[in-house]
């Protein structure tokens, strides 16, 4: 086992452990904190996969913005009545069964993948961030999704402000 493999197993254990905690823990605020841990673990894996830029974006956007928003939402909605009662709904057995079958199928497929044991080649040399940035603003690459994403953010902004504003004015 190389250092990288040890590191991988370490982070994988952290991610899976905290993911299980997110879906099973009874207290919402705990779930939110476990989510943060899982997101950090994934950022570490991005770094191991030579995607340093995405690792940073993961921390800034997911941990810094999304998870914090979750924590805010938990604090806004957590009244004493909320962490009580059953955390799980009534069809948990059947849901667990479906998930298991789904996972088994997925695993079967993935083990049949020929690239299964392939080692990841190192990505081409050069400044990856510059390449990413160029791809995002080149019409022949990803300019269109980039622009549409900006319109999407505008629409989401209007929507979120509308919903939040209405809630306050009540």
């Amino acid at each position, binding site marked *: 086992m190389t250092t*990288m493999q040890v590191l*991988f197993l370490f982070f994988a254990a952290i*991610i*899976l452990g905290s*993911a299980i905690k*997110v*879906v099973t823990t009874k207290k*919402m605020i705990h*779930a*939110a904190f476990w*989510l943060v841990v899982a*997101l950090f673990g*994934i950022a570490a*894996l991005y770094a191991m*996969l*030579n*995607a340093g830029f*995405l690792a940073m*974006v*993961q921390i800034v*956007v*997911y941990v810094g*913005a*999304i998870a914090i928003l*979750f924590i805010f*939402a938990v604090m806004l*909605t957590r009244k004493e009545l*909320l962490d009580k*009662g059953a*955390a*799980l*709904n*009534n069809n*948990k057995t059947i*849901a*667990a069964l*479906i998930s298991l079958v789904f*996972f088994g199928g997925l*695993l079967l497929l*993935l083990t049949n993948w020929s*690239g*299964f044991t*392939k*080692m*990841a080649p190192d*990505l081409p040399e050069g400044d990856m961030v510059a390449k990413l940035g160029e*791809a*995002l603003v080149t019409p022949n690459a*990803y300019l269109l*999704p*980039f622009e549409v994403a900006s319109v*999407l*953010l505008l629409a*989401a*902004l209007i*929507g*979120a402000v509308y*919903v*939040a504003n209405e*809630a306050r004015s009540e």
Partner: protein
Amino acid sequence: MNAVPVNYYIILSAILFTIGALGVLIRRNALVIFMSIELMLNAANLALVAFSSANAQLDGQIFVFFIMTVAAAEVAVGLALIVAVFRTKKSIDVDQINVLKG
């Protein structure tokens, strides 16, 4: 430098996706359901980055970048909705949000 086969990452992402989907199906709390959905999206992102690395391409990483953008937009709207529902119903338990039943 990469001594970890790509399949490790892919299997990890498959497990993570399944955990997320399970969370959506078994939990009653709208916020935790939404967190589980975020786990599913992260699983997909991890798979994309791993595949991208296996194919020595940047395209997968760019897609992840877009998914993160969309996720941020979704979170903004989704959490606003959840908080708004909480204000009227004083609950975000999806089994209790059931004025609508045929």
